[in-house]
């Protein structure tokens, strides 16, 4: 175990969760998706979050990224506490500090590649720095596609536009929710390579939810989640080690389910 899951108070911390809980549903049919998760991630790290389906990994990501409100606990991004205020305040908080990459890309279909990538800058009221956005897009291998619409691109290309969109604002943390889930193996490798370079060459912080051990092996470390709780972590993961741990977690969950029934 390294120091990542402890709670350091240094200024090099990009993300910090303190006893985050998320309960869905009303009385009677309540489901606890997150059961007091505490976590701290340093700047410039690439972390994968893994767990069996229903373990709460997507909920964790959404709560940490301000897309959903935790039922309890606190979230700090780059030292600032996520406001519990209105949807508008939360949106503005997200805009400044967080980038998000989705499984289904979620590009705006009526904007072209360059417009999609510069949208976060426009929203933040910053002058759309076209040259920087163009640089990032070129880095993503999309330099000759700037005027194309998302529907004219392959899945891999669309995801690279989404990565560029997340990078242009230089956010404190980039969250990626199964970013390779809708891609073929080759495109997936490209996307993961780009995320890795963003961390190691440009100092970004990336948190990625995935169920794919190979994808997780691109990360610096893997955090495991089971039944809404942290269930250990793995440094410098290999695909085999991750797969083995996952099988173990799956078995444990299945056994518990059986005894409950």
């Amino acid at each position, binding site marked *: 175990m390294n120091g990542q899951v402890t709670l350091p108070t240094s200024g090099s911390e990009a993300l910090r969760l303190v006893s985050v809980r998320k309960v869905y549903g009303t009385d009677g049919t309540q489901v606890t998706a997150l059961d007091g998760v505490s976590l701290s991630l340093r700047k410039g790290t690439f972390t994968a979050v893994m767990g069996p389906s229903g373990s709460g990994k997507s909920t964790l990501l*959404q709560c940490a990224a301000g*897309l*959903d409100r935790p039922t309890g606990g606190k979230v700090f991004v780059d030292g600032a506490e996520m406001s519990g205020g209105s*949807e*508008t305040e939360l*949106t*503005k908080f*997200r*805009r400044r500090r967080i980038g*998000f990459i*989705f499984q*289904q890309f*979620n*590009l*705006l*279909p*009526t*904007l072209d590649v360059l*417009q999609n990538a510069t*949208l*976060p800058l*426009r*929203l*933040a009221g910053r002058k759309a720095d076209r040259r920087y956005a163009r640089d990032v897009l070129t880095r993503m291998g999309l330099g000759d596609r700037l005027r194309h*619409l998302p*529907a*004219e691109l392959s899945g891999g290309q669309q995801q690279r536009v989404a990565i560029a*969109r997340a990078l242009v604002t230089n956010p404190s943390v980039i969250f990626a929710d199964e970013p390779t889930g809708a891609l073929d193996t080759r495109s997936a490798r490209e996307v993961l390579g780009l995320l890795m370079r963003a961390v190691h060459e440009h100092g970004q912080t990336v948190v990625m939810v995935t169920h794919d051990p190979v994808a997780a092996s691109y990360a610096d470390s893997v955090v495991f989640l089971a039944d809404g709780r942290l269930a250990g972590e793995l440094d410098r993961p290999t695909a085999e080690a991750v797969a083995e741990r996952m099988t173990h977690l799956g078995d444990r969950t299945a056994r518990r389910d059986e005894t409950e029934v």
Partner: protein
Amino acid sequence: MFGLALRSLRHRAGGFLATFVSMVFGAAMVMAFASLLDTAMGDGVPSTSRTSLVTMATVVGGWGLIMVVFSVTSTLTLVVRQRGDEMALLKQVGATPMQIGRMIVVETAVVALAAGLAAILPAALAGRGLLSLLVSSKRVDGGIHFAFGPYALGIGLGVTFTAAITAAVIAVRGTVRTRAAESLRNAATGDARMSRKRKAAAVFFLVLGASLAVTTATAMRGKGSDAMQTAGQTSIWVSIGLALAGPVLIGRVTAALARPLERMGGVPAYLTVQYVRRRAGRLAGTLMPIILFTGIATGTLYMQSIENAATAASGAVATADEKTIETLNFTVIGMLVVFSAIMLINTLVAAMTYRQSESARQRLVGVTPGQVLRTVIVEGVILTLLGVVSGAVAGLFTIVPYSIARTGHALPDIGAGTYLAVVAAAAVLTLGTGVGAALRTIRVPAVEAVTR
């Protein structure tokens, strides 16, 4: 397929609500006017009254028929289009286009039957109301007994059913034919370009309107209120022509307004301009009822004002025929208002549902709920402006020739009050519905909306 049709109907009762409502309205309207025929055929109805009743029933009822087909087609097309995913799925598991078409037609037939039956009671009440209106305005003799019989039921149910099936076939043809890859391409390249057929139809209706306008101003000059026969329909044809040209109008005007809009409205305006330009074809469906409403209402109302002013100026007293025509004009306007409103609300709500995932994506990127709302308002303003200006142009095609024919002056000496009232109604309907639908969209958490 019949079983599937019924099951799918039960699961999306909400989606068919707009279709059902417009069918009930249409059926009730047609039945109410057709009941005047039943009444006219009654024993002891004097022949002059009989003529009035039959004229009223056929003229206004005929317009009703056209409006029923129009509104049912518009609502159905949207219902069908919204189900693109479901149909693609059915195709994948092996349903032929024919089978899918049959499913939609059966669904529609069931809805039409239910709507026809639901319309009987309101139609009987409306028919009775119409008769008492005609009696009190001395268009027909008092003491005539109201009858609701074979004409009302036969014509009402027949028209509703025929209109519904026709509309279903039209709606299905377009959707079932397009392949998935094709519709994707359309989305990619923007759909502002119009098909050759649509272009030809637009030109045809505009030329028809122009030639009728010339006829009114020249051949009908000095023929008194007879000029209404050509003048009255002119604004309708021009409105239809302009509505068909909608995609091009939207594309051009938005391109021209892009810079000033973005300067004033910031990011929401920027997003709207991009959206409207790429989706001009789809938004033309929303523009259509606004143009029809403004164009026909403005044209007919001003024409009647010119007529009344001219009659008053000549010192003559309006004859019974002229009075009947006035009542007819106002009845047509009334029906038109109701139908345009249904069509407009329906297309707007459907468009918003369609856009739900798009607004959700905007919000995930960091667009605040307030900004999403502003994009909808900017869109509504663009559509309203385009609609009321086009409508005014269409209205002028009736007003100017009629004024020339009746008074010799190109422009009538009547204030802009009526037009402003029509514009206000169009604006309230468009913006009210748009904002209402948008507010509902915003309430759904973005993460949920996008995965739905």
